[in-house]
């Protein structure tokens, strides 16, 4: 009996402590809204690639038209740039770049099946839920080039579904974004 009580106390204390610290760490990530100056970036996952979208000078993402998605003419997001004013200046890229020490508000959209967005170095990990657009926010504090990998089995190309995340200085980022806008 003594053993059982000891186990209860020992493991019970440990459980409460771990649970409390863990809950706090979790809450820091998930229970705080993104700051007002967080930079919005959208990421779309599809079999078997990520595409990123920056809202452009107007700060607004144009609407997605699923029936207009077409890989062959590079309309990965299904944007209607002739009719939707908000879409006109949207910048779609195959690589993600963000400024260092600037909070990012990542808007997540799945085009087809379940995927996940995982950057091990940044401890950013979230599933894409088809039919349910989620968002998360994070701040990268170290300049570098990191890999984004998919961790949710999404089909035969799952192992090869990856993209790069470049964390840059603000000036480099501005230059990069301008160049991407010119390439559209």
């Amino acid at each position, binding site marked *: 009996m003594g053993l059982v009580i000891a186990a209860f106390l020992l493991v019970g204390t440990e459980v409460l402590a771990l649970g409390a610290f863990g809950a706090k760490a979790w809450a820091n990530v998930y*229970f705080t809204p993104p700051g007002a100056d967080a930079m919005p970036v959208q990421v779309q996952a599809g*079999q078997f690639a990520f595409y990123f979208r920056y809202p452009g000078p107007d700060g607004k993402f144009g609407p997605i038209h699923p029936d207009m998605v077409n890989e062959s003419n590079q309309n990965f997001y299904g944007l209607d740039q002739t009719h939707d004013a908000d879409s006109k200046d949207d910048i779609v890229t195959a690589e993600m770049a963000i400024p260092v020490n600037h909070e990012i508000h990542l808007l997540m959209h799945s085009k087809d099946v379940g995927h996940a967005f995982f950057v091990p170095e940044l401890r950013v990990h979230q599933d894409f839920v088809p*039919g349910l657009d989620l968002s998360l926010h994070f701040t990268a504090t170290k300049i570098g080039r990191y890999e984004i990998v998919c961790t949710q089995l*999404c089909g035969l190309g799952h192992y090869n579904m990856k993209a790069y995340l470049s964390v840059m200085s603000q000036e480099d980022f501005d230059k990069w974004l301008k160049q991407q806008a010119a390439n559209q």
Partner: protein
Amino acid sequence: MHEMASQAHVAHHGPPTSFIRKYIFSLGHKVIGKQYYGLAFISVLIGMFLSWLMRVHLGWTNAKIPGLHLLSPSGAPGDVMTPEYYLQLMTMHATLMVFFVLTTAPFAAFGNYFLPIQVGAEDMPFPHFNMMSFWVTFAGFLALIASFFVGDGPTLGGWTQYAPLSAVGSVAGPGEGMGVVLWAISIGLFCVGQLLGALNFITTTLDMRTKGMSLWRMPMTVWGWFITSVMGLTAFAVLMPACILLILDHVAGTSFFVPSNLVINDQLQPHSGGSTLLWQHLFWFFGHPEVYIAIVPGMGIVSHVLIPNLRRPLLSHRVLIYSFGALAVLSYMVYGHHMFVSGMNPVSSIAFSFPTLIITIPSTIIVLIWLASLYGSRLRINSASLFALGFISMFITGGVSGFFLAQPSLDIMLHATYFVVGHFHMVMAVAAMFGIFAGTYFWFPKMFGRMMDERLGKLHFWLTFVGAYAIFMPFHYLGLAGNIRRYQAFAPDYMQRFIPVHQFITIAALITGAAQLIFVYNLVYSRYRGAPAPENPWEATSLEWSTPSSPPPFDNFGGQLPVVYHDPYQYGIESSTGDYVMQTSPEQIKSVRDEA
């Protein structure tokens, strides 16, 4: 005895005379138990073979595996595995192992054979249900195997079959059409089989006990199977309708698990309004109890095997049983820990995290009871007791990583990595396998009247024990370093450096797998040539050792149901038989610790 004996009449049916009734469509619980064991045996051989193919491919991605194209011309053109074929083999490995091995062998096989004997019954109360239970399960097995031979092969969606990948049909990839439908039929049938089995187990335990067999006088194994049956009854009853809904999404154009506006291959999918998270909730509401369905019978077997070898009872049988019960109740409250980063409300992650941490308390108590009972004992070392020790070792090692995974904040890093794969292989898969081995070495003399070879058994143990650690410990390091599971090759740059570790694991897996052939040989050889088993080789007390012969006669006790006088584990006492007394012995003894 007589009021109980009249209840036992419900199950009374004479021994069969025709071959078909005796060995194929048998109503006898012992033959059904052996049929389940045989099914698990075939499944584990296939499952292990698939894991070999996967391991070779992970270590040497472009390696030719001689003859592989014969297995699947499209899956392995030129004997090199394609990415989709890897995922198909992985899905089949997991499905076979989780359902047709880890559920059938410790629960359905040993449970069918020994539960009625250990409670002193002639048979299960519903023998036709029992027969149906096996044959429905077997039909499920055939449906699963059939998917190897249809169109583009078996499903590649993983054993969890997350929607919408699993629900939109073949547009999502090879095997996602007919392969998924066959998978869902297979698992749906499996659920029916296990529901029928669970009903029989529960009724046998509650209604068929012989005179004197109070609940507290049931062996730990019976408690394990009984509690597992209660879990099975509720868990499989959730998975079965989930499988039906999945099939409907395929064949009837419904959208239970598929939301609107999905675009696959530039085609807008004709589905709308479904929820992908719904599938995950339904699946894991079954899926987490399932891991306890796989492990609790093993815990019962390990306790049952250890005690006669310890020659003294465990520290407390009641606390052990209460802990089994606590595991069963908590197992429903923790399932969300599979979904911490799935996109469900993050508040529920914390709600699921605390029960997950709390479930370590009964697990710790179970382990401490075993360890404290082992402390200072003179354990009889034989193959069965070694595998029981191995079970405890695996359960502890695998359980410790559970403390990490229980926390959503750590799961941000560890989810979907090899850390998880290492964790569940140790705590559930290898541990449950060790429980199956312990049960086999322990009960073989009773089931076949012959002893297994002890020298080969010990060799088998050491190779398997060391091999299992060599395979699954490195998984944890890989996971911490960010190696993602379900990858057929390591395309991300940072994963290149893990390849040598995978090569090491592959070699360890090939050797450990080959070591299982020792067990296969031992099993087959001993069945026909083993030394004749004495009546009670382990000097054990429970009812299976009181039957008139080994294997027991058709009605188990030769027409005379036993009467029980003692707690199942009266060891370390003085009696006319030595240091133990049979449950059926009317001898008055001074009990060491009669909790009954």
